[in-house]
């Protein structure tokens, strides 16, 4: 029954999306201040739809938990012997399930928006919900018509095929749902932007409604990318943490757009400037989310994420992509002229710095987009081109380096207009830190240019991040400002980790007989023994490595080479020794003919800072949300109190002057 309930819920949700779309559109026909009789269904439709879509997802989750092998999706992606955790995470480890998750989150965020957002004018809200319903409808159609997750098998399978072993990992349990929630949070930003554009309500009040969605989506994307990077690092077994793989780029591009959008929204909320720029970034961010979904889900990449090698699905998503992005940019082009001019500002102002960095972020986005799509484009003409780190790193650095420099100074500038001369000391300190660090590090050896620049910038950014607090009473600094300080400091921390990994990593690959010792950095690594071990759905050989730092007490690491049997595949389970100043990364390989074992060991100084930085950035975002919510709640209670007081006074017949 579960599958049928799920399918029925999906069809009903799709029908409600139509209602939401039509009813929302009627709100546009209402005159100012009035409510169209047909427009009242949009909110309830969105809320009920959210329940139904989530119900459908829970039904699929239940089918995976109980390994219901009469459902095709379960039979082809699960196995009765899998641990429960991976049965559950297997729900979104495949095409149909992940699309259902996508749609579920989309409906849920639409429902939350409809249920709780009361600040916007009804017309804008109606237009927003109509757009949200239109987007949801396309994805319901995609699920129901070409990727039905609830399809039954004519005869139930005796046993499932199993989940790809690389995906059987806790990192993958959290990585995709977080990323999807981020992608889809941007859909609300998109709908709100379109709603405001259609009803000409691009103003600070709208920005304050938009901001929590953008911040929330951005936090989730940041966290998802950080988790994904760490997962790739420890699971793939060669110590790489970012590969510029199209699938990674698919998550990076919405993040870049969302970062720019977040800053732009803040300017709109605080200063009523950058109106069209905010709308454009809103459209761009969700376009990148959909492009990411298309790249990963359509099969154009033929990587592990693209299980669907079925061109029909690819064409369907491409169609949706063109419809939404094309439609959005058309409306933008038609309506952008009608959006009134925002407040002006000087070049040397906080807005000026933010505009500069938003342009830089967009340029990096363009580079990543080009490098990701170009090989696909040439492949269509049977020319195969490789675009990899040697291209992406320098090309994005062209824009990233000036961006980091401006980022160090930007928060110190005043709104509207400022004199750079006022910041002489700060500017001097930042320049001295960049140059001093580079000179100091070059003194100790020859290092590649980019890591060297990274170290210099990281040092300057780390100090500059705290400069906005100078001369302020720390306990009176708003929570949101602390969020900014923390996030900017996180960027410095992350950059420092990346630069150290690039400049100072040491590698040792060797064939070692049991009892043999290898030296790497200050560590001596002794292979004590190799033993076979077994898990619930795999067997492995496990090495016992004694790691001793500068002759000290040894620590034992157990790297494994696992062989899964359903589906048959091998993976390397790396073993990590984490120190405050870096990580030792050990992997066991095959046995050579002479009985020696291949071991790979890396010493990666400060590599963990990459992910600590990512977590700090996400935490900064959380603080920013908390701070804004606090201020909003305060403002709301103040205004209700004021309204009550006025009502009381009126009741007393005093009729006071209408003072706000």
């Amino acid at each position, binding site marked *: 029954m579960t599958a049928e309930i799920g399918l029925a819920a999906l069809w009903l949700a799709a029908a409600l999306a139509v209602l939401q779309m039509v009813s929302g559109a009627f709100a546009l026909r209402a005159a100012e201040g009035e409510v169209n009789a047909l427009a009242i269904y949009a909110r309830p439709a969105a809320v009920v739809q959210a329940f139904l879509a989530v119900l459908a997802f829970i039904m699929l989750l239940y089918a995976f938990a109980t390994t219901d092998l009469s459902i095709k999706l379960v039979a082809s992606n699960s196995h009765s012997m899998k641990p429960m955790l991976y049965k559950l995470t297997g729900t979104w480890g495949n095409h149909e399930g992940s699309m259902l998750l996508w749609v579920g989150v989309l409906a849920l965020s639409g429902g939350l928006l409809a249920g709780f957002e009361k600040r916007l004018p009804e017309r804008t809200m109606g237009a927003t919900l109509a757009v949200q319903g239109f987007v949801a409808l396309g994805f319901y159609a995609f699920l129901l018509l070409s990727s039905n997750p609830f399809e039954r098998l004519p005869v139930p399978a005796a046993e499932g095929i199993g989940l790809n072993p690389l995906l059987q990992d806790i990192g993958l349990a959290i990585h995709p749902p977080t990323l999807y929630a981020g992608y889809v949070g941007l859909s609300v930003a998109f709908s709100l932007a379109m709603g405001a554009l259609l009803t000409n309500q691009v103003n600070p009040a709208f920005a304050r409604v938009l901001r929590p969605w953008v911040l929330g989506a951005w936090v989730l994307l940041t966290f998802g990318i950080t988790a994904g990077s760490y997962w790739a690092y420890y699971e793939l077994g060669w110590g790489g943490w970012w590969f510029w793989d199209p699938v990674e780029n698919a998550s990076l591009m919405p993040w870049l757009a969302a970062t720019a959008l977040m800053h732009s929204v803040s300017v709109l909320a605080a200063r009523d400037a950058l109106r069209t720029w905010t709308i454009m970034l809103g459209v761009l961010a969700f376009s990148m989310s959909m492009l990411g979904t298309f790249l990963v889900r359509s099969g154009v990449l033929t990587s592990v994420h693209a299980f669907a090698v079925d061109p029909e699905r690819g064409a369907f998503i491409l169609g949706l992509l063109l419809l939404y992005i094309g439609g959005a940019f058309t409306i933008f082009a038609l309506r952008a002229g009608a959006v009134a001019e925002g407040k002006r500002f000087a070049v040397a102002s906080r807005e000026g710095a933010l505009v500069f960095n938003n*342009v830089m972020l967009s340029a990096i986005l363009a580079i990543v987009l080009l490098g990701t799509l170009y090989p696909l484009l040439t492949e269509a003409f049977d020319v195969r081109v490789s675009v990899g780190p040697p291209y992406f790193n320098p090309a994005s650095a062209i824009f990233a380096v000036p961006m980091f420099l401006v980022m160090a100074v930007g928060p110190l500038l005043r709104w509207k207009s400022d004199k750079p001369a006022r910041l002489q000391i700060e500017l001097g300190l930042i320049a001295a830190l960049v140059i001093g660090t580079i000179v100091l590090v070059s003194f100790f050896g020859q290092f590649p240019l980019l890591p060297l620049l990274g170290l210099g910038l990281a040092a300057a950014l780390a100090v500059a991040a705290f400069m906005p607090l100078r001369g302020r009473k720390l306990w009176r600094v708003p929570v949101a400002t602390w969020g900014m300080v923390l996030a900017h400091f996180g960027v410095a921390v992350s950059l420092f980790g990346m630069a150290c990994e690039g400049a100072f990593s040491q590698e040792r690959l060797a064939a070692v007989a049991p009892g043999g010792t290898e030296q790497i950095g200050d560590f001596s690594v002794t292979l004590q023994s190799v033993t076979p071990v077994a898990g619930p759905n795999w067997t492995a050989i496990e090495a016992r490595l004694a790691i001793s730092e500068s002759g000290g007490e040894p620590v034992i690491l157990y790297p494994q080479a696992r062989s899964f049997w359903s589906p048959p595949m091998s993976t390397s389970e790396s073993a990590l020794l984490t120190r405050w100043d870096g990580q030792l990364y050990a992997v066991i390989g095959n046995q050579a003919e002479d009985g020696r074992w291949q071991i790979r060991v890396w010493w990666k100084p400060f590599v963990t800072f990459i992910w600590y930085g990512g977590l700090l950035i996400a935490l900064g975002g959380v603080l920013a949300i908390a701070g804004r919510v606090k201020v909003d709640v305060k403002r709301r209670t103040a205004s209700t109190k004021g309204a009550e007081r006025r009502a009381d006074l009126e009741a007393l017949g005093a009729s006071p002057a209408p003072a706000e």
Partner: protein
Amino acid sequence: MIRWLAAFFIAILALPVAAQDTMPPAPYAYSQLDNPQLEAEAAALMHTLRCIKCQSQSIADSDAPMAGDMRHQVRSRILAGESPDEIRRWLIARYGDYVSYEPEVSATTWPLFAVPVLIVLVVAGVLLRRLGQRRGSSEGQSS
């Protein structure tokens, strides 16, 4: 991120036809050169060569047997005194442009270089228009 997987799938599918999979890996596939300077040169080169059986991985981070063979080729040629550029050219002659991540301007790749230049120009243009004209003039465009 998971280009490994593709590599493994392909490796598994290719098992019956690829006799090399059952052979022990070449000597320098999994061990380093003794001279640290030569090894650094080889490692730098390996990070810019694509494992053609994998999805977006360099030969320096792949377990595919073919990547191992290519690592052996790179290390033994470096040891024999060839320059990294010579080795890259040799590999490109053998496997095509696809094997090299190092971008080179050619008939098929020129847009990869032209577009960033274009982006720099557009960025400069946008910044000049948005920020430049605000100085003094009150006729500034809205943002």
